[in-house]
Each structure stands twice: as structure tokens, then as C-alpha cells.
């Protein structure tokens, strides 16, 4: 099979195909969407579904082929680069080639992105079928996949940044997909703008890298931003490692919605639910984690930066979990859980366990997209109801969806044997083992909260009595086939993905982490301590029981005793209010940053400088002056012949005088 493929196509060609195929899909569907009216678009729906799902499928297939090819080379590292496809920028001191690189890390990411992407595309066929913008939707989703694959496969930081910005663009386009609704359009703009704040840091980090590389005297031809040459000259980053790491991490904070830039993600739920599943849960928001792991050789040079990352990660994990407790919008609960889980990943990165972070990233992608897709089905079944207080009892109407959601919740809560258990415990164990007791405690606390809020959602939505109107409840049913299949596939993945990382303490092999470890120098040198296995097992059991206890509690309370929490909330009213208002963070940002900025922009920059100086004096002033001279010139055109002859004579006299005198 592999031989047959490689008879016709080179390894490099295959790598290029991975991102290019979705781009072709995006271009094809996008052109049709652009040139036909919305009403005519319906004719092309079948084509869009076919091409829109075929391209990710082929892309995924290419990833699989790459995986088996590269793991087949036993003697060498499973990595390959395409080399430069073309030279993008050639300045005397800066060369940027566009090239792709496949190694363990990007392979895992590409498999995850294209795999989950494929499932979400299939799900979307059913979910979006009746939408007017069906073609536009598929074009954008394919485009997103292209940029995301470019991001993970890039062999240098600049191309990665192109993908990084590209996914932001697609995210903006898809959050405000229903742009007729002003609130949704604003949510998209908010996501885009908040991301730019982080990207400013990212860019500054890139400038510093450029400075460090050129100061190190690295050969410009190899490309200062090429990961390999960066790694080769890694030692020269030492003096600026903290600055570079923190600036790059600022980009990651924006993209991955960490404190203090997490505010855009809950609003981003305004987009279609499959978009939330793919972009705002599984792939794009985890790009920050991927970036930090990819550049691990810089981050390990700065213990301060790693410490900061770990603390921000842990704080976000616990803070977002608290916010999730009081949220009543189903999709926003999932959004807060995403923020919280990415916090865990950064916690892992911060303590130096890069591979574990990727492990959690992968399992999280599975269970969180599963949760979103099932939530989307439930929301659709109730004709758009998102408030968990007005749902309930859906298990009887849509059992597959309900049990899949429970499976996802179990994984999120970290209950064995769902995959989330292994990855989350790996993070907590790494934090503990590497001596970060406080961080472990925060993670532990967060795990309990997580279990509670997600089973609160599960209990409210799928169990207990229905809180929606009887008629609506009667109409609720399992979604169409194309939506059920991806859900079931994802549920299977969620159930078994834990195999990738069964810890050594359980007699497992910790497959994924060991495999990835080859890439990460700081992990290679670290020998696992033999004597701590007992401790690991005990801690694991404690965490499991802790999570399980909260899960059952949340499920019981919200499935059967829904008035309890309200009574408790009344007793601690101020606190409950504070949490349900999200600690007023949005309001504080609004007062301290957004409004002053708008005030300065409007009063000083717009009305002061732009309106008065630029428009008033420069632009309109010029126009008025031109108009005035025009009026003078026109006024000279009196229509009286004598005047014309007078001008003539004046001109002639001037000319003759000029020449002869």
C-alpha cells in the first residue's frame, strides 16, 4: 500500500498535500459561494458537502500514510522536512523559506487536527444543512483546516505565524458567521482584537529572536527563524531567553485564552457549534501550547518564564473552573472548561513536562469536541435552547447523545478509564514529582471543581425532569445519521485514547510521551525515579476518588435536587453573585482598558486629530482650496470676448517681456 503511494508521489509531496488539499477545497467551494447568489447556493450543497469532507479526509489519510511511513524507519528519528518550496523573503540579512516539517510532534498534531477536523466536517453536513450560508461555511472550515495544518507543520516561525494569524482570521469569520446578528459580529471582533494583543507580544518575541540569531552570527541563508537552525544556535538565546519566552507566551495567552486574555473565548461561542468544537476547543486554542512545546529549547533556558507559565496555567485552570460552576449557558460552560483544561496544559508545560502537555492536548481535543458536538445536538434538538436550567431529561429522547456526553464528561472529570484520567493525572503527577507542591494542590482542587461543573451540566441537560415545554421536549430526537456517526467515533476515541499514555506505574508503557520525548532534550536527560511508583499510585487513587465524588455529587444534585443549589446560593448571595457575574472581569476590562481607549481614540485621535487636522485641514482644506481656485478660474471664464482677448494680451506681453527683457 505504502509502496504503491510512493511510486507516484514523494514523501515531500505527501507532506505538502496535507495542508494543500483543504486549501483546494476552500478555494473551490469559496469560488462557488462568491459567484452565486445565496438562493442559488442550494444547488451546490451536495458538491460542498462532498468536496468539503473529501479534502479533510484525504488530508487525514495523507497524515496516516506519513505516520506509518515515518514510524517504519526504525533506525532514524521519525521526521522529515520538505525543504524550501519557495523563498518567501530574501533580504540581505533575512531569508524566509516556506517549508514544512514532519516530526513526532507535528505528526501527532496533524493527525489530531485532520482527524478531528474530518469528524467535525461530517457532523457539520447535518448541523448546517438548512443554513443559507452552507457553502461559505464549508469554504471557511476548509480554510481553517489549511491554516491550522500550516501552523503545526511549519518548519519555521514565520510560516507558523502565517498559520497562527490565518486561524485567527478564520476564527473571526466563523464566530461572526451569522453576522446579521450584531452581538455575534461583535463577539467575533472581540475574539480577533483580544488575539491581536497577544500577537503583538508574539511579534516582539520574533524580533528578539531575530536579534539574538543575528548577534550570534548565524548564517542568514539558513533562515533565522528555521526551527532547526534556532535549535542549533539555541545557546545564544540564554541572555534574552526570559524576554523571548514571556513575549511568545503572551501570544499563547491570547490564542489559548489564559488569564488575563481569556475573555474572548466564552463570547466566541456565538459561532456555530461545530466551529466551537473544532476551533475553540480542539485545535486553534491549543495552538499556544503547541507553540511553547515546539520552542521548548528556548523556554527551558528560562526557569522564570517556565515558573510564570505554570502559575498562570494553574491559576487559569482553577479560576475558569470556578466560573464554570455558575454559568448557565451550556456552550459557555464548555468554553470555561476549555480555558481551564488549557490551563492544565500550561501547568504541565510550566513544570517542564512538555510531552504530557501534548498528551493532554490530544485527549482534550477528543473529549472536548465530543462534548461540543453532543451539546450541539442537544441544543438543536431543543430548537436552540442553550440555558441548562431550561433543559433536562434528554436521555430518554436521545440516548446516544446523552451517554456520549457522559463519556466526554467522565473524560473531562478525569474518571478512569476514560482518556482524560490518564492525561490529567500525568500532569498532576509530573507537577508533584518535580516538586511543585502548591501547583499540584491547585490542580487537584481544580479537578474537583471540574468534575462538579461538568456533571452539573450533564445532570441538568440529560437527566432528571425536563424543564422545557412539553411540546418541545416531545419533538426532541436524535440528530441525523451524519451527526451521530462522528459523535460515536469520537466517543470511542475518548474511551480508548488513554491507551496512548498508560503510566509506567500501572505497568503501561507511556507510549505517546516516550515517543515524543525524543524531540525534547530536557526530557531525554531526565531518568524516571524508580522508587516513587507507589506514591504515584496512591496520588492517582486519591485524585480519582476526589473527582468521582464531585461528579456523583454534581450529577445527583442537578439531576434530582435542583432546588438545593439555589438555596445554598441564596445563603452566600454575594459570593454567588460575584461568580455568576464572572468576577466582573469583563466590566473591569471595559472600564479600565476598553473605554479609555475608545475615549482617546474618539475624542483625541478621531475627533481631535483625524477630523480636525487630517480631514478638516489637510484633506478638506486642500479640497476647499482647490475648489476656491477652481471657482476663481471659472469666474475668469466670463463669456465676454474682450476679457478673453485681454488674458491673451496679458499672456503675450508677459511672454514677450520675459523673453526679450
Amino acid at each position, binding site marked *: 500500500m505504502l509502496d504503491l503511494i510512493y511510486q507516484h508521489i514523494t514523501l515531500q509531496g505527501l507532506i505538502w498535500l496535507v495542508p494543500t488539499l483543504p486549501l483546494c477545497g476552500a478555494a473551490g467551494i469559496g469560488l462557488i459561494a462568491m459567484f452565486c447568489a445565496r438562493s442559488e447556493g442550494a444547488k451546490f450543497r451536495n458538491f460542498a458537502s462532498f468536496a468539503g469532507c473529501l479534502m479533510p479526509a484525504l488530508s487525514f489519510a495523507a497524515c496516516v500514510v506519513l505516520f506509518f511511513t515515518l514510524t517504519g524507519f526504525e533506525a532514524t528519528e521519525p521526521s522529515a522536512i520538505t525543504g524550501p518550496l519557495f523563498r518567501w523573503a530574501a533580504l540581505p540579512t533575512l531569508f524566509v523559506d516556506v517549508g514544512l516539517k514532519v516530526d513526532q510532534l507535528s505528526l501527532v498534531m496533524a493527525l489530531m487536527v485532520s482527524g478531528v477536523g474530518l469528524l467535525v466536517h461530517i457532523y457539520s453536513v447535518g448541523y448546517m444543512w438548512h443554513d443559507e450560508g452552507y457553502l461559505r461555511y464549508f469554504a471557511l472550515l476548509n480554510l481553517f483546516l489549511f491554516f491550522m495544518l500550516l501552523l503545526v507543520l511549519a518548519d519555521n516561525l514565520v510560516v507558523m505565524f502565517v498559520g497562527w494569524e490565518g486561524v485567527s482570521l478564520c476564527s473571526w469569520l466563523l464566530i461572526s458567521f451569522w453576522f446579521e446578528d450584531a452581538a455575534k459580529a461583535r463577539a467575533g471582533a472581540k475574539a480577533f482584537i483580544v488575539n491581536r494583543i497577544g500577537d503583538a507580544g508574539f511579534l516582539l518575541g520574533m524580533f528578539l529572536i531575530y536579534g539574538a540569531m543575528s548577534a550570534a552570527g548565524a548564517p542568514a541563508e539558513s533562515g533565522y527563524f528555521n526551527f532547526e537552525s534556532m535549535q542549533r544556535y539555541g545557546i545564544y538565546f540564554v541572555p534574552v531567553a526570559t524576554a523571548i519566552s514571556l513575549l511568545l507566551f503572551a501570544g499563547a495567552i491570547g490564542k489559548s485564552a489564559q488569564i488575563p486574555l481569556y475573555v474572548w473565548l466564552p463570547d466566541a461561542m456565538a459561532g456555530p457549534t461545530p466551529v466551537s468544537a473544532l476551533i475553540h476547543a480542539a485545535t486553534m486554542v491549543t495552538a499556544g501550547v503547541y507553540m511553547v512545546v515546539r520552542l521548548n529549547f528556548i523556554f527551558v533556558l528560562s526557569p522564570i518564564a517556565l515558573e510564570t507559565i505554570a502559575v498562570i496555567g494553574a491559576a487559569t485552570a482553577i479560576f475558569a473552573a470556578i466560573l464554570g460552576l455558575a454559568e448557565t449557558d451550556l456552550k459557555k460552560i464548555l468554553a470555561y472548561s476549555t480555558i481551564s483544561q488549557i490551563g492544565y496544559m500550561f501547568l504541565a508545560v510550566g513544570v517542564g513536562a512538555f510531552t504530557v502537555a501534548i498528551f493532554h492536548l490530544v485527549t482534550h481535543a477528543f473529549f472536548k469536541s465530543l462534548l461540543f458536538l453532543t451539546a450541539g445536538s442537544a441544543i438543536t434538538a431543543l430548537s436552540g435552547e442553550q440555558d441548562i436550567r431550561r433543559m433536562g431529561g434528554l436521555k430518554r429522547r436521545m440516548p446516544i447523545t446523552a451517554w456520549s456526553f457522559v463519556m466526554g464528561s467522565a473524560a473531562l472529570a478525569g474518571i478512569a478509564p476514560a482518556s482524560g484520567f490518564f492525561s490529567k493525572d500525568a500532569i498532576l503527577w509530573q507537577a508533584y514529582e518535580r516538586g511543585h507542591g502548591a501547583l499540584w494542590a491547585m490542580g487537584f482542587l481544580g479537578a474537583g471543581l471540574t468534575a462538579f461543573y461538568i456533571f452539573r451540566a450533564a445532570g441538568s441537560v440529560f437527566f432528571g425532569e425536563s424543564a422545557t415545554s412539553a411540546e418541545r421536549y416531545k419533538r426532541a430526537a436524535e440528530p441525523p445519521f451524519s451527526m451521530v456517526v462522528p459523535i460515536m467515533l469520537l466517543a470511542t476515541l475518548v474511551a480508548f485514547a488513554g491507551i496512548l499514555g498508560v503510566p509506567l506505574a500501572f505497568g503501561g508503557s507511556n507510549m505517546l510521551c516516550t515517543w515524543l520525548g525524543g524531540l525534547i532534550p530536557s526530557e531525554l536527560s531526565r531518568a524516571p525515579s524508580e522508587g516513587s511508583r507507589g506514591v504515584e499510585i496512591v496520588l492517582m487513587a486519591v485524585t480519582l476518588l476526589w473527582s468521582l465524588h464531585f461528579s456523583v455529587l454534581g450529577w445527583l444534585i442537578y439531576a434530582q435536587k435542583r432546588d438545593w443549589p439555589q438555596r445554598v446560593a441564596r445563603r452566600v448571595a454575594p459570593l454567588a453573585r460575584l461568580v455568576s457575574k464572572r468576577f466582573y472581569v469583563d466590566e473591569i476590562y471595559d472600564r479600565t482598558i476598553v473605554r479609555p481607549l475608545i475615549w482617546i481614540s474618539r475624542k483625541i485621535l478621531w475627533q481631535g486629530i483625524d477630523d480636525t487636522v487630517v480631514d478638516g485641514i489637510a484633506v478638506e482644506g486642500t479640497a476647499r482650496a482647490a475648489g476656491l481656485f477652481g471657482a476663481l478660474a471659472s469666474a475668469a471664464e466670463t463669456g465676454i470676448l474682450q476679457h478673453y482677448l485681454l488674458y491673451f494680451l496679458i499672456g503675450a506681453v508677459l511672454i*514677450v517681456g520675459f523673453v526679450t527683457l
Partner: protein
Amino acid sequence: MESLTYIDWPVTIRSIAPLLALLGGAMLSLIFAALPGNKSWRLEFWASIAGFAAAIISSWLLWPQSGKGAFATIATGRLSQAGILIVTISAMFAAFVSPSYMEARREARPGYYGLIAFTAFGMAAVASAADLVTLLISIETMSLAVYALAGFMRGRPASVEGALKYFITGAFAAAFLCMGIAFIFGSAGTTDLRIIAERAVSAAADSRHIFLFGLAMVAVGLSFKVAAAPFHAWAPDAYDGAPTPVTLLMATGVKAAALIAFFRIASAIGVAGGELWHGLLWGLAALTIMWGNLAALRQQNIKRMLAWSSVAHAGYMLMVFPSVSANPQGLVRALLLYIVAYSLMTAGAFAAVGAFGLSSGEPADIGRFSGLSRKRPALAAALSLFLISLAGFPPTLGFFGKYYLFLAVVRAGDVGLAVVAVVGSVISACYYLRPVMAMYFKDARVRAVPKAPTAVPAHAFYAAVVAAIVIAALAVAIFGIMPQDLVAFVEASAL
């Protein structure tokens, strides 16, 4: 008489065949015009077209073999052939647009096409005059015919008024031209441009004064013909009053012929003017550019707007003259290319304006163009193309014309002048885009349009109007994207 036998007649006739063809066509038209019956103008029309066609073909055939030759007082080189091609084609455009225009106004009378043919002959002679006296005579031939054409619509007071103003100022200018020639003759002892060129440089100090005086007078006379400020005042009135096809002819052919003649004089004897000449023409060009563009801003009438724009374009083309002696070849290339571009887009614009006027009367006000894009989409698109090209936006011929012209001017060292021209171009975008905006972004004023026939009018010869517009539009668009053939032709013409 004896000397006539020394002339190699076949060769001579061949070398001035285009001029003879035009003259023959004009004569023939007059004879047909004298036929009885009120439809004789049709034969006259075809006779004039035949003359133009013969001239174009013979000039096209002659072009490859001509070098810098001359016959007596007529230059027969490639520059002349190119000039004849340009002016004859503009005359042909004017003739094509005329029949349906004149019929629609019930002004189709005999004599009109004969006058156009004589104008064409005059223009061709102006473009190939190598002697000041020949120049004077051919300018007068051309002008007399145009005066009559401008006032051809006797029923329209504006037409007569414009023609009269044109005629009187023209006579005034002719006096200057004539006197200038006399002074030059007085100092140089000849009217042959080539000989003057040799003598002017070495002229003695006292006669140099007289020479310069004469040169200035000639410059004044020719500035009138190209409508350079401040000798332009007649142009808006005459352009507005004249029948639109005649305006087309005045704005394209007449101006092109005068510019080529101007160039001959400038390259031959301008060098003797030295710094004075440079300063004089610099000021003239800058003044014309700014005056034309600024005055055009305020115009509500599209013909007057185009008249002022033609003043501004005359200014752009005058930019080649200040430093003409520095690099005559490069500058004449740029000038010729610009003349071709300008003639095509101006001819197209006036043809389109005339075509619009066929169904609903002369469109005096730009507001009348509101909503034209929905009523006559093809016509609106064509007119927009011409206006955008006049404004100099890529990818149109107008852009390349401006590009090469400004480049040549900068290379010749007149950076300041190029800056003035660029500023002028920016201003010009403002008024060129107003009709486009009206056509595409405004709805028709309900009140202003009585249930007028908005469909294509069924005039005879309407196909000729369409052909003229289509040819001009294609040329503007295609040469705008692939200018290399045109550039090659122009470069070869500037030998």
C-alpha cells in the same frame, strides 16, 4: 517653370500621397455637396471617408520606408506619417459620429463633411510642415474649416457665439504667429526650419534679440491652437457651443497637429532660446495644468468639463518642451504616445457623450447622467472607461501615456514640473469620477427624464457611432494592458 522638370514626380507624389489623398477627398466631398437634393450629404460623407481611408492606407504604407525625408517645405518622415495617421483617424472618428448626431438635431446639411475633410487636410499639413510659411498657411486652412464647423448649427445661438469667439481670438493669434514668423525671418533670413536651426545658434547678439522675440510670438500663436493657458479662454465656449463631433475633432486632431508642429519648432530652434525658452515653457505648462484642472472642478456641464480637461492635458503635453533640446527623441516618443492616448480617450469620451445625447437631447448637466448605468449599461461602461483613462488610472492607456510622459519629463530633469503634473492629475480624478459616480451610484432624477426613448435610437449611421466608441474603448483597454505594440510604433516614429 524650368525647375519643375527637375523634380522626380513619381517619387514626390508618392511621398506626399497622404496629403494629396486628403485634399482629393475634400474636393470630391465639395463636389458631391453641391449636388441637388437634401440627401447629398450622404455622398459627401462617403467621399470624405474615402479620402480618410486613402490617406490612412497610404500613410501606413509609407511609414516603414520613411526616414527623415522632406519634399520642399513638407517633411515626409515617420513623424509626419505618424502625425497624419493620428489626425486623420481623429477626423474619421468625428465623421463617424456626425451623421446620426446631425440628423437627430435636423442639422444634416451639405458642406459639413467637406469642411471636416479640409480640416483633416489642414491638420495633416500642419503636422508635416517643415517651413514656417507652410505652417502658417496650413494652420489657417485648418482653422478656417474648424471655425465654420464650430458654428455649423446655425439654429443654436451657443454654437454661433462659440464659433465667433473662436474665430476672433483665432485671428488675434494668427496675427501673433504671423508677426513671429516675420521676426524670425528677419533675423535668420529664411523660413525653412532646418536652416533656421543651423543659423539660430550662431546668430549675432543683436539679431538674436529679434530672433527670440519672433520665437516668443510663434509660441504664443501655437499656444492658442493647443489651448494653453492663458490663451485658452476661447476653448470652453467653443467646445461647448460646437456640435459634439466637431468638439471631438477640435479636442483631438487640431490639438495633436498643433502639438506636433510645436514640437518641430521647439526641437529645431528652441535650443537657441536656452534658459529663457526653458523658463517660458515651464511656466506655460505648469500654468496650463493647474488652470485647466482647477477650473474643470467647478463645471456642471460635461462638455465644458471635458473642454477644461483638454486644457489640462495640453498642459501635460507641453511639459516635454522646456527641455526638448536635452533629449528630443525620448521626449517626442513620450509626447506621441500621449497624443495617441489622449486622442483615443478624448474621442471616445466625446463620442459617448454625443451618443447619449442622441436619445434625450444634449446632456448639458452632469446630473443628467444619473442612473445611466441601468438604462444604457454598455454606453455607461464605455464612458466610464474613457473618463478613468483620462484620469490616468491603470490599467488603461491613459495611465501608460501619463507614465511614459512623466518618466520622460523627470529624466529630462524637470522634476518640479512632473510634480505639478502629478498634483494636477490628483485633482483631475475628482472631476472625472463625478460623472462615473452619477452614472453608477445615483438614481435617475424622476422629474428630469420625461418618458424619453431610452432604447438605442434608430438613427441611420448609428452603427458608425457604436463602431467609433467600440474601437476607442478597445484601444484604450487593450493598449492599457499590452502597450508594447503601441510603444514600439511610437518609438519607431520618433526617428
